[in-house]
């Protein structure tokens, strides 16, 4: 830590102390308030503990915060409430990153997303969404536990940025029937019904919580600036950028009124009887965006995703020494993606319109057995040993159709039809040598027939060094197994990967946590090295010709249009600091929070060093809420700030396109409606200072004589959201 940073910490602590000065008696109560404000986390170590001593940067986002600050999705929760994490609006559900690293196009596969401990990342691509398509009803969320930093030691693949564990409410906190309706006027509506109940089943206490909801979005009808794709390199004429439009080479130049929509029914059910827990969840998500490189505003360029997960868990306390748990689980995922293009260089079949369709289904079935050993029966020296066996299957198809006749243009790529089994074993040792020190060490071995074994270790320690202060240090690793789609699949324009290796990250971090009555400060520094990152590489003309000659594709060679292939291409060096303060005044009537992260992410490839696109080097959030008390509303004001960052999907533009720094501001009024018992409301006004995001849209992703400048995705800048909930 630099001298300047140290001064900053102590000044902040001093300010907190001064701000919260009260009488001696009141201070005693505020000490109790401080204890009650301690965040309890369990994801990082599979052991319930205070966040300040957990073996990673762990924070809880509470249900109250989600409501007070007008949060509707996980991505919004991370932006407005999280520390060191942020999302980026790509006009198609968003992307998420952490600590200055964001890997565009990863479909959320570098975060492990759990709901009540069940993995939501899909079995086909390892991806997940943090937007409305996640199918997680926000009213049912008790809290969201965010672990920032590598977390594969207990969870395996995908936990490279960290882990997001959504913990749903227990029945006692969601009892009765609840009906919800919320609309971002006039573009989307979400309606839902949920319930919670406690009862006895065969003599055992049982509880059930459930919610079904439906989300529909149509719009916003954003304006896309015209892009001139010029003379088509295949036809020698200006290209067509719509099915029946003129061949004038123009894409955009008007509002997109057909292709910004989403449709998503979803449901979740959790039943707990004694030590047995059943979790069922399903979601369908149809979504489209006008921002792609194909035809402009084509409604059929869309993706359909279906997810279903089920798990049954049972815990047995064998003795004071040993506790066992078993979890049987399954996950099913299917997707279909249609990409409509008419330009000759994409669809070289005369006056035709192409529908490039890829589809796939995948599943896994698994069993995880875990034993917890408390060697001295007092929690001082405990061991977790676990094993996870999983059977997986996948099938994919890819084809290119004539949209008019349905005829296939190419001989379809063979697709995948595979199944295999994976095994993993993990161990964690937790040791409390004194009352103020916690040492946590562990490792996990994952065996995958495609790559061989991957070992991910972690060693962490925390020390309560002074009153309210905890020092933490940790080293951790994580990996992401390339998905079936990346490692084993090919499409008409993407050739099969060659010996793809798992991505890995290793990270060291130190932090200071300080509690002063009801106020908490955290400041930390980190250094991470990411290796073997998988990227979709564009083949050179020479490589393309070679691939065609070697039968790796049946696509004819088109000058200027290249094939692609997934490759381990880059290494990222990532370091920086993150800090956050949160607390309350006036007996929790006035709450506040503030976080900021400064991070450098240096991407290195064989071609040299560059800054990661879309990833901001400076970002954070601030919030304040005033809980006035019934019948007056709670007023919440939140801000999410992101610094300037280079745009994605661009090459050859001079100067390179940059997204300007931006702030998203959100004012929320929430409370109980007057006169009607059981009715509550949320009114949200959201404003974004940015006109554009950080993604190049449309077909021109490298400078052309007819289009020297890049166009960035437009942002929906102002929106009013109205929500009501009725509790029976």
């Amino acid at each position, binding site marked *: 830590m630099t001298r300047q940073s140290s001064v900053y910490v102590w000044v902040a602590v001093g300010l907190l102390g001064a701000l919260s000065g009260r009488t001696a008696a009141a201070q005693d*109560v505020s*000490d109790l308030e401080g204890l009650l404000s301690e965040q309890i986390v369990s994801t990082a170590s599979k052991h319930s503990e205070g966040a300040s001593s957990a073996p990673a940067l762990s924070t809880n986002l509470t249900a109250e915060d989600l409501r007070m600050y007008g949060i509707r999705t996980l991505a919004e929760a991370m932006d407005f409430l999280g520390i060191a994490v942020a999302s980026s609006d790509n006009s198609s559900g968003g992307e998420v990153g952490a600590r200055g690293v964001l890997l565009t196009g990863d479909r959320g596969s570098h975060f492990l997303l759990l709901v009540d401990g069940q993995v939501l990342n899909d079995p086909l691509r390892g991806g997940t969404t943090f937007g409305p398509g996640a199918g997680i009803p926000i009213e049912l969320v008790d809290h969201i536990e965010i672990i920032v930093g590598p977390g594969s030691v207990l969870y395996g693949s995908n936990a490279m940025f960290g882990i997001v564990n959504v913990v749903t409410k227990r029945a006692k*906190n969601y009892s009765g029937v609840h009906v919800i309706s919320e609309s971002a006027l006039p573009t989307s509506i979400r309606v839902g019904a949920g319930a919670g109940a406690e009862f006895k089943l065969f003599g055992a206490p049982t509880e059930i919580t459930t919610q079904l909801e439906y989300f529909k979005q149509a719009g916003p009808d954003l304006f896309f600036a015209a892009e001139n794709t010029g003379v088509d390199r295949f036809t020698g004429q200006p290209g067509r950028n719509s099915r029946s439009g003129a061949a004038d080479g123009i894409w955009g130049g008007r509002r997109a009124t057909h292709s910004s929509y989403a449709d998503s029914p979803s449901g979740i059910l959790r039943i707990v009887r004694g*030590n047995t827990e059943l979790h069922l969840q399903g979601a369908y998500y149809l979504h489209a965006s006008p921002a792609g490189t194909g035809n402009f505003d084509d409604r059929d360029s869309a993706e359909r995703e279906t997810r279903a997960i089920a798990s049954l868990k049972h815990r*047995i306390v064998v*003795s004071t020494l040993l506790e066992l748990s078993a979890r049987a689980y399954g996950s099913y995922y299917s997707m279909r993606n249609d990409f409509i293009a008419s330009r000759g260089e994409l669809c070289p079949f005369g006056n035709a319109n192409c529908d490039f369709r890829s589809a796939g289904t995948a599943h896994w079935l698994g069993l995880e057995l875990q034993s917890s050993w408390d060697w001295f029966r007092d929690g*001082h020296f405990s061991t977790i040993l676990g094993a996870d066996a999983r059977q997986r299957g996948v099938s994919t198809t890819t084809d290119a159709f004539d949209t008019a006749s349905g005829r296939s243009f190419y001989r379809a790529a063979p697709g995948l039809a595979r199944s295999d089994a994976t095994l993993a074993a993990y161990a964690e040792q937790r040791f409390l040598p004194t009352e103020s020190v916690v040492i946590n060490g562990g490792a996990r071995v994952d065996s995958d027939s495609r790559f061989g074994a991957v070992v991910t270790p972690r060693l962490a320690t925390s020390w309560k060094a002074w009153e309210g202060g905890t020092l933490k240090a940790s080293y951790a690793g994580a990996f992401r197994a390339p998905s079936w789609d990346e490692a084993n699949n090919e499409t008409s324009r993407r050739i099969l990967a060659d010996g793809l290796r798992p991505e890995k990250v290793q990270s060291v971090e130190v932090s200071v946590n300080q509690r002063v009555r009801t106020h908490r400060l955290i400041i930390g520094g980190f250094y991470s090295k990411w290796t073997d990152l998988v990227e979709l590489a564009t083949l050179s003309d020479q490589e393309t010709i070679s691939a065609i000659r070697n039968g790796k594709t049946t696509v004819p060679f088109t000058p200027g249009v290249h094939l692609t292939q997934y490759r381990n291409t880059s290494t990222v060096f990532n370091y920086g600091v993150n800090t956050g303060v949160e607390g309350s005044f006036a007996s929790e009537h006035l709450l506040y929070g503030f976080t900021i992260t400064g991070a450098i992410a240096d991407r290195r490839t064989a071609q040299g060093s560059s800054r990661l696109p879309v990833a901001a080097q400076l970002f954070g959030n601030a919030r304040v809420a005033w809980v006035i008390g019934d019948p007056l509303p709670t007023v919440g004001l939140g801000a999410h700030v992101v610094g300037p960052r280079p745009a994605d999907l661009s090459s050859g533009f001079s100067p390179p396109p940059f997204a300007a720094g931006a702030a998203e501001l959100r004012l929320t009024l929430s409370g109980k409606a007057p006169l009607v018992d059981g009715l509550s409301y949320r009114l949200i006004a959201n404003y974004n200072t940015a006109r554009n995001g950080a993604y190049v849209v449309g077909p021109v992703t490298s400078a052309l004589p007819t289009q020297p400048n890049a166009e960035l995705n437009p942002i929906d800048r102002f929106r009013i959201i109205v929500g009501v909930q009725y509790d029976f």
Partner: protein
Amino acid sequence: MTSSERSKRSRVDADMRVRREPLRSSGTLTRRAIALSFVALTLTSLAVAESVQVPFNVQADLVAKVANFDRNFAARAGTRALVLVMMMPNDAESAGAAQEFRSALQRVPKVGDLPHEEQIVTYTGAAALADMVRARKVSIVYFGPGFSKELPAIRSSLASASLLTVGAAPDYVAAGIVLGFDLVSGRPKLLVNLEQARKQQVDFPGSVLRLMKVYS
């Protein structure tokens, strides 16, 4: 730990059978294992325990702090606070919780601003517990998991005692334990049964009750 406690714990351990399931490696065996586990899990629900959600060290810190605010605590405890940590016989989870809570409380310098002593006691009945409380000038009795069915008897037996009863599981408070813990939105929450508190001469000021979920 006394030799009798050690002996009791050994019996508890010996009474429980360790279940181990083999790990299969091939796809077929994995599928069989999964299928068998579903059956086993569906049939196995014998050991039903109350959920303890707040870590024991946090519970210990809270008990020590809250006792400060009980206006009758000092008079009840005298110069040294005696804390009984109850353990249900033949219940491994209850035994484990008792030991972990006692260990956590031992690390806390003072309880209610007094030096303190913790003893694990095997529960034999509500009446016997009430007798022990009166005879030994007990300040706090802590109940871990496994006491749900005993709570009505405990509630009535201890109704006239000057005593702070504390329950690990949130459901205990509605059933007659004075103070309990819950985990709401990832943060600990104190629960208090005000009627039982009055009967047991536990008197918290309004400033503390404001921080608690009150059952009356």
